[in-house]
């Protein structure tokens, strides 16, 4: 296939952008930027969904695109920014793993993810299936990021971007899930973030910091 239709190319670009953003998040230590990156990811996701909706004409995709836009581009980042301001956590401390090391691990994971996606790609009937690999790697990269971070906030962002990855996976593998499920998922994410918001304040008022090493007291090793 020498020359793809435009939409296809755009979609692939979006996918690539997503991956890029994930890497950026992996390396990024400023929490505020992290949130911005997350917002960007959301935006790209929304764009991809929109494109897809436009090409396939599945109207429920429009809805989910709108949902994404509202939730992941507007509301959640706003909320997170607000939290950051309120709690005054701008920087994550040095990650547990050196950034370079994380990057390396990330690369390995991407390779793994693509090999993983092969059978799915073979199966999937969508013309976005080439992007499944990227979706998987976005998920795994987010996972990696959560492992390496020390601030509660950045872990949450990681969690959210993982959810993005999953969402993108659904999108690219099968033009999204049934409406009921998507609504449910969206709702859950929303609630989750709200709960987290509450959480932050509680943690804060107990430990007056969001540093995770306060949360290492319950253990067996002594």
């Amino acid at each position: 296939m020498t020359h793809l239709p435009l939409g296809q190319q755009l979609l692939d670009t979006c996918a690539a952008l997503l991956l890029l953003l994930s890497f950026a998040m992996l390396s990024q230590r400023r929490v505020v930027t992290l949130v911005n990156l997350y917002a960007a990811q959301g935006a790209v996701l929304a764009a991809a969904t929109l494109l897809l909706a436009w090409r396939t004409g599945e109207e429920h995709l429009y809805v989910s695109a709108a949902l994404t836009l509202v939730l992941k581009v507007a509301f959640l980042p706003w909320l997170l920014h607000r939290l950051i301001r309120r709690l005054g956590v701008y920087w994550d401390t040095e990650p547990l793993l050196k950034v370079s090391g994380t990057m390396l691990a990330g690369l390995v994971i991407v390779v793994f993810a693509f090999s993983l996606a092969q059978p799915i790609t073979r199966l999937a009937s969508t013309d976005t299936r080439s992007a499944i690999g990227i979706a998987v790697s976005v998920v795994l990269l987010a996972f990696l990021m959560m492992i390496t971070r020390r601030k509660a906030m950045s872990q949450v962002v990681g969690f959210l971007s993982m959810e993005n990855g999953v969402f993108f996976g659904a999108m690219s593998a099968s033009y999204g899930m049934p409406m009921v499920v998507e609504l449910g998922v969206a709702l859950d994410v929303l609630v989750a973030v709200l709960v987290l918001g509450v959480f932050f304040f509680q943690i804060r008022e107990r430990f007056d910091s969001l540093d995770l090493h306060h949360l290492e007291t319950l253990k067996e090793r002594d």
Partner: protein
Amino acid sequence: MTTTFPSLLTGCVALLCGWVLVGLAGLLRPESVRFAGRTLFTLGAALGLGLAALAGASLLSGGIERLILPIGLPELPLHLRLDPLSSLFLFLLGASSFGISVFAGGYFREGEGTAPGLLCLQYHLFLASMGGVLLANDAYGFLVAWEVMALSSYFLVTTQHRLPEIRRAGFLYLLMAHVGALCLLLCFGVLQGGSWLFTFHAMRAAHLSPGWAAAAFLLALVGFGAKAGLVPLHVWLPDAHPAAPSPVSALMSGVMLKTAVYGMLRVGLDLLGRPVWWWGLAPLILGLFTIFYGVLFAAVQTDMKRLLAYSSVENIGIVFAGIGLTIVFAGSGMKAVAALALLATLYHCLNHAFMKSLLFLGTGSVLHATGERNLGRLGGLIHRMPWVAWLTLIGTLAIAGIPPLNGFVSEWLLLQSFLFAGRLPHAFVNLLIPMGMALLVLGAALAGYVMVKFYGIIFLGQPREASLARAHDCGWLERVGLLWLALGCLALGLFPLQVIRALGAVTAQLIGAVVPQASPHWWLLAPVPGRPVSYGPLVFLTATTAVVLLTVLVVRLTYRQRVRRGPAWDCGFGAVTARMQDTAEGFGQPIRHLFQPFFEIERQLPEPADREPRYRIAIRERIWRLLYEPISAAVDRLANTAARVQQGRISVYLLYSFATLLVLLAVALIS
């Protein structure tokens, strides 16, 4: 296969239920000793007598009765079966429990930890569950009864749960019991042979590959051995038996251990079909070792109940040696001798039930009268408590294997089966047999030593403490209990022929051969046809008494000097105090000295310049350091390693999940 209504079996079940009800009745007035103690226990005793009667009847009839009750697992209702083997042990349970329960009726008093009502419940549940074990005809029912037995006895053991050492004893006991039960569970898992029917009937039918059969046998040996107190699985026994109230110790030692023997016979000789000869080696060798080990430790004990507990270990050793011998013979197709060995084994079970219960009850009375378990603080009680003393003497002589009492008969039979092993097809066993005989005899002789120590130090000599002067003889209920058991010892000793006839049904069932009676006389025991070997306890007894009486008569008639009481002569040393007598430690000293390698001894000797010299000696079993402490240490180490996993840091936890995910994905891709 009897098609008639299983009347005897139904009767037995009814009696067991009766026991449960009696126990529950104890909860009506839990605090009242008079009601829960006296009334209910005697009632339970009566039920025991009934059970003995029924079981005896079925034993003599030799028939088999089956019954199926619609409880238990869905596919597996509760199967019950009354065959000679189970009826023999039921008889043992009923008969000895009668004496014990009557005694218990007089025994329990206020302020003994658990309330009498609760005790009554646990006690009778214990009895009923033992009956259940003997009647069960499917693995599930068997195991349930088995564990209920362990559980109820555990609660009985921890009656005085305020004392830490008793809690420790109880814990150890339940742990060993549970592990043993798990082994049995696996054993039955093998036995059912993929038929998924857990009835014993199906197990008999199942055809196991030799490997599986051997595995099942070994699992059974471990499981039942742990309950019976086979060395090295006996460690719980010397702690648990003394910890329990004496009637309970009597039950545990006299009856509960026998249920393990029953199980061993049931699995080894019944469910597994025709055994392979070399299976027998394991119980034989372990048994012989257990005999020796148990009696050695009994000899050095200073606590009277511990001493008896170790002597139980020894007797269990004798029984298992007998089982091993039976299997070796049966496996080599020597039915006649196998039957003889089995007979001796069963006989010894009966004997031990009576002797050991009698002795434990005796110690119970002593304990109540003096509040002392330590031999070093007893002595001279024959003057204060003649009933207990003289009745216990019978038990002592019996367990020391003195003719014409019952202990001698079973040992005699066992020796005969050793002697007439004849030529076995396996050279190794041929050499093992004489060794075994030697160990058995040595054990018996040592048992004599132990028993002289036990009796002499408790009942003879001078009281070692001033408080003993206040000791009083036991009440009439206790006397009845003791008397019953003592009479049992005598009867079993004097009428072996009749007993053996009754046991014939069992040997016929398990071996397919009965021990013949080679002599025409009803009073003469001649078990080996074609060999002039015989023993007639009645004649023996009459002859001895005749000679003794004659002597007395002659002496009395010819010499009329009066007998004067004076101070003890003691080579004219004068001023003999009770402290000058040999102590329990002293009496054990030769054994300790001779068999040092078996013991882990820590001595505390006085300094030459000590104002008040103290001599303390503590003896532990090496088994602990060789086997059990390493195990627990290993578990500890493992636990510490495992604890590292749970190390509190969320990133690490996430890493676990991540790693698992990746690995599993890889696996999924590859496969």
